[in-house]
């Protein structure tokens, strides 16, 4: 078969044109041990992070390690992801590493670290497409939220009950099928009728802005990466209407 090397009229490799130059994480601490921990997190190396944390715990306060090593390291990863340098798996692996480090610190502390806030995530009833939800979970975890993961194919009532039980600051739903997304307005209506006006961020291939903003409480989530930022807005006092007008429309 003949292969043409001049492909200019056929396609353009926009990925090559926009590839950002590789950058590494910034220096986050002048303390050698803390910087090492951040580097391990940024490398997404769970084992090495654990080692580094264990070592540091011999001399340092667990809270210092968390707030000046593990979390800043993770923040750097998030920044590089936002800038298009890193890909998703790096975020996930770094998050896994950070979580492992935090776990060790918590053991030392004797009590769990206070999380930023509780968030319930789920994939709609009848739907097992959960990759989107997994990403959301990982990113929220990485950002310091407590994620209550209800999993896939979750009946409407289970979602509503979980909300009543846990009183999360935010609920998320993922639906990849047009036949499953109809659960979202039903959940929203039930919550609303109980006067539980919690922001309900819905995403996944099947839903779109129009659908989600068509019912009260609904905010459309285009990219998983928006979830932590939305949750951040809620911590700063945003109601669902405010979230919607900021993120949608």
């Amino acid at each position, binding site marked *: 078969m*003949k292969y*043409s090397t*001049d*492909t*200019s*009229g*056929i*396609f*353009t*490799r*926009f990925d090559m*044109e*926009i590839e950002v130059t590789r950058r590494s994480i910034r220096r986050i601490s002048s303390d050698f041990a803390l910087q090492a921990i951040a580097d391990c997190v940024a490398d997404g190396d769970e084992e090495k992070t654990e080692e580094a944390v264990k070592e540091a715990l011999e001399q340092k306060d667990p809270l210092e390690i968390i707030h000046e090593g593990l979390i800043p390291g993770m923040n750097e990863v998030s920044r590089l992801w936002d800038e298009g340098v890193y890909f998703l798996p790096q975020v996930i692996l770094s998050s896994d590493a950070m979580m492992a480090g935090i776990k060790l610190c918590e053991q030392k502390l004797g009590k769990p670290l206070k999380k930023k806030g509780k968030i319930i995530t789920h994939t709609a009833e009848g739907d097992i497409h959960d990759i989107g939800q997994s990403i959301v979970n990982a990113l929220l975890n990485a950002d310091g939220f407590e994620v209550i993961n209800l999993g896939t194919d979750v009946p409407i009532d289970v979602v509503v009950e979980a909300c009543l039980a846990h009183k999360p600051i935010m609920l998320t739903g993922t639906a990849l099928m*047009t036949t499953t997304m109809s659960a979202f307005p039903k959940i929203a209506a039930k919550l609303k009728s109980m006067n539980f006006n919690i922001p309900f961020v819905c995403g996944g*291939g*099947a839903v*779109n802005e129009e659908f989600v903003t068509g019912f009260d409480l609904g905010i459309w989530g285009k990219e998983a990466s928006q979830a932590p930022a939305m949750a951040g807005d809620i911590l700063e006092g945003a109601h669902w209407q405010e979230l919607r007008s900021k993120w949608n429309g």
Partner: protein
Amino acid sequence: MKLSDKMAYESYADMMFGTAIKPVTTKHGLVIGGGFVIPEIVPHPRPGSEKTLKTLMREFERANFDALERCVLVGHPAIVIENEHISQMTNNPDWGMEITIQTAKQIEEFKIKYGLKAAYRATIADIRRPDRVNLRDSEATAKVLESFEKCAEAADIISIESLGGKEIFDYSIIRNDITGILFSEAILGGRDMEWLWTRIVDIAERKKCIAGGDTDCARSNTAMFMAGGFISKDIPHTLAALTRAIGAARTLVAHECGATGPGKDCGYENPILKAITGMPMSMEGKSSACAHPDLCGNVIAAVCDLWSNEAVAYHNMFGGTTPAVFAEILGYDAAAMNSAVALGFQKEFQACLVNSDRYRGPHGFILSPDNAWHIGKAIVENSRSMYARSKAAAFKCAELLLGDPNLRITGYEKESLLGYLKVLESLPDEENDFIDLCMRKYKNVNGFKPDSYGLQ
């Protein structure tokens, strides 16, 4: 206006997709007909979005963005976005203008951010209804011209699907009346186009914008659509084919007035126009199934320069919104053709497109490059009047249809064709005599106003 008297292409064998003898370059540097086929995506706003300028702008913003983004996503190098005005946009010329400015900005942003090459075609709605207003002197006419002025400012290309002759055409097409069809296309359509396109070209020249072209949509596509597929029983396909050949002589007028192409997508007569003018043409076929079915899905791509979906209403599909989905499809269609160019296999590829539909039906047959070229030749060889060349196109079309035994025609359609030929043969030789005859025959047709065409 001088009627064309020679062919730009000396032979149909030279006609090829992606390349025109006279390519055009847009304000932003996109070359059309310069070697590659470029997709032309046409999104259509959802019902309700036309309520206010704001909602309509938002609708087009999304639709155009989705198409541009999808090109970057899958690597399509270039795209033309066409927005066909809905009546509100031409009735309020500022609406059309605002949307044009917005789109030009979007295109610029994608160029800066990703290096995507794009262009914008604004197609003004012909809101001059021949049965109601004087085509040359009415509020609607003023709005149409104002819209051209305002859109030409930021658009790369301007076009219209003009309506002249529609009142007589509609009356005739459902009456099997080839005389009325000829009158409506050649005389009425031709005169209206000359009047209108002189003005459009003037505007385009002043605004450094490209005057694209017209289409015989209002007549030939109505006929093609009514002839339908293999089940419909509205009108014979042979009549639709004759209408198309006659319509080519009409659409050509835009270029004789100075339009440079790219011709407008739904002009299925464009292969004939390309043969005559050498200008780039937009075409649509299989990937405009979202807009209407046809029997020439592949063959119509054989000599296209832009490749369009005609129109798709904004809507979410699993794979994204419709403008994104169809931009992707059109772009891949174009990529296969452009690969053929890169490999030097364009003749073989073209033959595959042509053979897909050459014998599927009369339309595909007469629009095959060879036959299209021959109809073009009949047109330029009879350049003494619009009437003469249009009738010649019809005769050539009929001759071709009857001349190739591989083209099967149902008994009824063949019989009809022979009937049209008899009528055509009985018509006078001179344009003036023909006009006299038609003025008598159609004077009482509802809404027919001779002075719209400078007649009487």
